[in-house]
């Protein structure tokens, strides 16, 4: 247990140390703090984009989801691959436009493209609403990891406070460079840990990966294929499409995109990233390995599947290393999310509403907001747990609503207007939150449709409403396009 604690402390110190060192030699103005002066090449952008895959949600959630639900977990492997293909074509356009106009955030992009400050504020609000639950999720995961890996010596609320403290320090000190460099250590550790566990557990416990799946198939028939109704293959297809649309719409992902030094960076990344995220396969294997060996976890406890099986089969020092890797999967995305949220509020909500604020004041305000946002997230983390998954789903369905107006703005013969974009986003977000909080499904709402369509991910409805509003309102409010908007 002592060894385990030492590893956990080391992980926290390394994260902090790298964050502080990363700033050396770079003057911290707005463009440097947020997008590293757009100087990142293939490797650093790769680290940022790749780093976003390995959050606590995939580390704990991926294993937990396969443990709890079986086949539906396959979607987490499929959607990012589709998203990278979309990114190949979409991201260079976004990057070029943002670089030409010195834009450092996602609402900047929308506001500039549609020539509407109000639209920028709306996009920023949607972004913040989506980011907060995502941050809460990282902190919740951090609590689970530290308390499990320390064998209960550190209670999860202490871990949540310590983690938030570390994030505050290194976000304020180093900005996005800290995240990129810590991501190297994080990904190297996660990679080693996950690949090792994903191979060793099936071989040690079952005698091979294929033997493990045969054993599961015997014990739980139908667990390894999609059910005929509910989370069926049609749910799978619609969910993959929907989440791949939302993938690059997260505000902090946009920030990673803007750090690139040219458009080719993304095209190269679209070749390598699909292979890199195959690592998730090993996370899924860990979850399946736990199915027959540590049965009985229900509800929220399925997130513990990875640690339960590691504690049951491996010595404490390995538990410590797994915990250390887990801490980094929470700290790195957590700090990026915090930075994105503070920049959104300072620059795109406060800054857009008052004209007389300089860039240096925005940086100062954003840095002051970092502890505020994190303490708010700590409060949400400790005050409730049952709604977190619901909130994450809301977050994802919110950011996906930004996809149609974005695609509309990139078209050569564009017909979408700012009024259309606003109507679409607001309508889509309203429908998305109603659907999620009232636990609707397509089948319940539209029972006359064929059963395949009834199984579609319910988010499709919000997106459809969004697109219809976007097109209809744009058609009504169309006017000649100005030269600045086309570019």
């Amino acid at each position, binding site marked *: 247990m002592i060894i385990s604690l030492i590893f956990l402390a080391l992980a926290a110190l390394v994260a902090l140390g790298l964050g502080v060192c990363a700033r050396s030699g770079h003057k911290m103005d707005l463009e440097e703090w947020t997008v590293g002066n757009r100087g990142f090449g293939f490797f650093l952008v790769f680290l940022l984009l790749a780093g976003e895959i390995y959050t606590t949600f995939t580390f704990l959630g991926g294993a937990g989801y396969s443990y709890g639900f079986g086949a539906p977990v396959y979607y987490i492997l499929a959607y990012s*691959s589709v998203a990278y293909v979309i990114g*190949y074509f979409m991201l260079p356009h976004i990057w070029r436009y943002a670089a030409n106009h010195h834009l450092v955030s996602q609402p900047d992009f929308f506001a500039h493209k549609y020539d509407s400050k109000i639209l920028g504020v709306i996009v920023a609000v949607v972004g913040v609403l989506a980011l907060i639950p995502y941050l809460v999720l990282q902190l919740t995961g951090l609590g689970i990891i530290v308390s499990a890996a320390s064998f209960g010596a550190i209670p999860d609320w202490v871990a949540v406070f310590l983690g938030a403290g570390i994030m505050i320090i290194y976000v304020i000190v180093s900005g996005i460079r800290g995240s990129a460099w810590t991501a190297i250590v994080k990904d190297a550790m996660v990679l080693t840990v996950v690949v090792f566990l994903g191979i060793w557990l099936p071989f040690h416990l079952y005698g091979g990966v294929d033997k493990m799946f045969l054993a599961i198939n015997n014990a739980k028939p139908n667990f*390894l294929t999609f059910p005929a109704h509910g989370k069926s293959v049609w749910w*799978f297809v619609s969910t993959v499409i929907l989440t791949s649309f939302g993938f690059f719409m997260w505000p902090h992902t946009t920030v990673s995109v803007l750090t690139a030094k040219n458009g080719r960076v993304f*095209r190269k990344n679209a*070749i390598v990233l699909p292979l890199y995220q195959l690592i998730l396969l090993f996370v899924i294997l860990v979850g399946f390995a736990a199915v027959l060996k540590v049965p009985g976890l229900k509800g929220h406890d399925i997130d513990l599947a990875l640690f339960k099986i590691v504690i049951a089969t491996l010595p404490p020092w390995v538990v410590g290393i797994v915990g250390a890797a887990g801490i980094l999967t929470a700290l790195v995305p957590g700090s990026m999310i915090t930075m994105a949220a503070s920049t959104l509020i300072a620059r795109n909500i406060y800054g857009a509403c008052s004209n007389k604020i300089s860039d240096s004041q925005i940086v100062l305000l954003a840095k002051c907001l970092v502890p505020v946002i994190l303490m708010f997230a700590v409060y949400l983390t400790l005050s409730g747990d049952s709604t977190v998954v619901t909130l994450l789903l809301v977050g994802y369905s919110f950011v996906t609503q930004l996809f149609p107006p974005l695609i509309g703005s990139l078209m050569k013969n564009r017909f979408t207007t700012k009024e259309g974009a606003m109507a679409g986003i607001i309508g889509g977000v309203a429908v998305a939150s109603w659907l999620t909080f009232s636990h609707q499904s397509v089948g319940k709402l539209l029972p006359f449709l064929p059963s395949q369509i009834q199984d579609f991910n319910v988010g499709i409805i919000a997106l459809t409403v969004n697109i219809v509003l976007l097109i209809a309102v744009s058609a009504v409010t169309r006017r000649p396009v100005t030269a600045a908007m086309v570019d």
Partner: protein
Amino acid sequence: MRLVHWIAALPCIIMLAGVVLHNKVFPLLLWLPFPLGWIALWIVMTSVVMAFVYSIDKNNKTETGDNAR
């Protein structure tokens, strides 16, 4: 859509279609249940196809890799 768009969409479509058409555990593919193995296989193929798309995409011939308009 240009030709490169269609080529790039192909592995995605095949990946999803395979799962819909053969949602069965057997035959195991790469030691995995068929749908999982199929997805893993086509992720690798996505990478291969995107490398090919990169090599024929004329946007990458310019010095900065900007989109030719």
